[in-house]
């Protein structure tokens, strides 16, 4: 018995609006982006837009501002991920030991920055990091420590941006890790306690291996997120001083709105697409593997 055409078409009709959106706002823009990266775009007179082959790619790889942005993004990602993951892991293990009111409240407080706009957080931190009137240097002065230039020196600007990003995301990742920790059966810990395993040994031999799949996913999600960094940088430093905190996305933004170099902007966009694409590929490959094993 053959199902009538109307029945067979039903799922496609149900999906139609969703896929109109995906076609218009995901698939088409990606194709257009790649297409434009092979052209020298003239925005005022589009008839003067000319095909230039790989020229944008070659010129971008030789462009020191882009290479700096690429390097900055890598440095930013590395430090943000290392610090966030390390602190979030410690915090999660420690806070999940006791589920009392204060622990819950601490989790809630640490999570709050995650739901607040980067604009707000960027603004309040740029006030606190002001070398003269800012809170940080004035607190340091109380302890007799000489203050920093924070965002205003190319030596400390990147560190300051990383500091803000780590502060903003610790709480979120702690709670993700606490979720993972709660899936470990308590009987394993009881067995370890019977064997007189110390805190550090338990952590190294049981806790971390048991949550390593979740940790790895968290790591990839964090990496993808940090390669897209823009908001915090735009508010805190505007890429400065002297390009010290310019990221890939910041570079793209600058090419589009300040330098009107669309060829370069789209080519840098393709680079971002490739980086995020590779990371996403790794993510889904691991995801299907994990589903397979369970």
């Amino acid at each position: 018995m053959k199902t009538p055409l109307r029945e067979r078409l039903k799922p496609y009709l149900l999906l139609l609006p969703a896929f109109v959106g995906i076609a218009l706002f995901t698939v088409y823009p990606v194709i257009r982006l790649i297409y434009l990266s092979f052209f020298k775009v003239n925005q005022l007179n589009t008839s003067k837009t000319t095909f230039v082959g790989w020229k944008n790619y070659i010129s971008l790889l030789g462009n020191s501002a882009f290479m700096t942005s690429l390097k900055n993004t890598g440095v930013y990602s590395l430090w943000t991920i290392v610090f966030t993951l390390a602190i979030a892991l410690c915090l999660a293990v420690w806070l999940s030991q006791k589920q009392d009111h204060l622990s819950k409240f601490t989790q809630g407080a640490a999570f709050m920055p995650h739901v607040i706009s980067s604009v707000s957080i960027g603004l309040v931190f740029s006030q606190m990091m002001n070398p003269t009137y800012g809170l940080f240097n004035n607190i340091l002065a109380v302890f007799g420590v000489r203050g920093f230039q924070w965002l205003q020196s190319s030596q400390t600007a990147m560190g300051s941006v990383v500091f803000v990003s780590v502060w903003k995301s610790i709480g979120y990742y702690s709670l993700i890790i606490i979720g993972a920790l709660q899936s470990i059966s308590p009987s394993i810990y009881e067995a370890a306690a019977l064997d007189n395993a110390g805190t550090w040994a338990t952590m190294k031999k049981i806790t971390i291996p048991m949550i390593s799949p979740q940790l790895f996913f968290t790591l990839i999600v964090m990496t993808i997120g940090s390669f897209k960094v823009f908001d915090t940088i735009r508010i805190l430093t505007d890429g400065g001083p002297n390009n010290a905190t310019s990221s890939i996305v910041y570079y793209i933004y600058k090419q589009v709105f300040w330098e009107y170099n669309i060829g370069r902007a789209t080519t840098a966009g393709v680079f971002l697409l490739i980086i995020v694409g590779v990371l996403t590929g790794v993510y889904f490959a691991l995801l299907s593997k994990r589903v397979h094993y369970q």
Partner: protein
Amino acid sequence: MYQTRQKIGQVIGILVKVIICVIFIFPFVWMLSVSFQTEQETTRLPITLIPSHLNWQSYVDAWNCAPFAVYIKNSVIIIISIILLQTIIMVPAAYAFAKFDFKGKGFLFSLILIAFMMPTQVTFLPVYYMMSDWKVMKTLLPQILPFMTNAFGIFLLRQYFMQVPDELIEAAKLDNASEVQILSKIMLPMSKPGISAIALLSFVGHWNDYFWPLVMTNSDEVRPITIGVARLKDAEGNLQWNMIMAGNMFLVFPIVFIYILASRYIINSFVYSGIK
């Protein structure tokens, strides 16, 4: 001896937790403090921790400095439109993926995942050109339409729908229920928590969003609140921190208020969506 050591350990534990709370809450208190300071207080040494009096003037200044009523109105319209549009589109799509077998299902589902992972920072320029071609840059549509398909929402809702027993749907079909009736009478009531969690994530995400409106708007009539607040810092002349922080409160207060009322619910929505 052992007991005293345990006691000390407990006290230190409590102390460290309190310090952690202060580290995460203080910047928000500081925001509030600076917003109530006078301009002299913000640029005076030693710095002012507690303002001498509640100086509401900076709020008035911030409000008059830029059309905040328009910004807030825009943000609200954008968010409500996005949530409605997303829900209308998401529900049938998740239903199709959860309860139908059809050719190309795997391929279409992988497209959903790709759309979910695609950064807006990659797609914004072609979308901007498209919106310019459509001549809608003077409306809020460039900030609404691109978010019509909530890929992540479809993914999450599909999991809720898959838990609805097939027998229930079969029984409804025997009673000659239409698909619309099945969706509204069976599927939706059973997935209310999922839909409200997705709406909450959309609300927080778009209220806070900065990148998309920054690249999609070029006039005050269509700007949302994040842009308005950020522009207080870009304004010419000396930075007036009290005014900037007052403006900042317009952006922060609604979210903090909701967060204090429903922090457990909000945390669970975010964490659940993060683990999947």
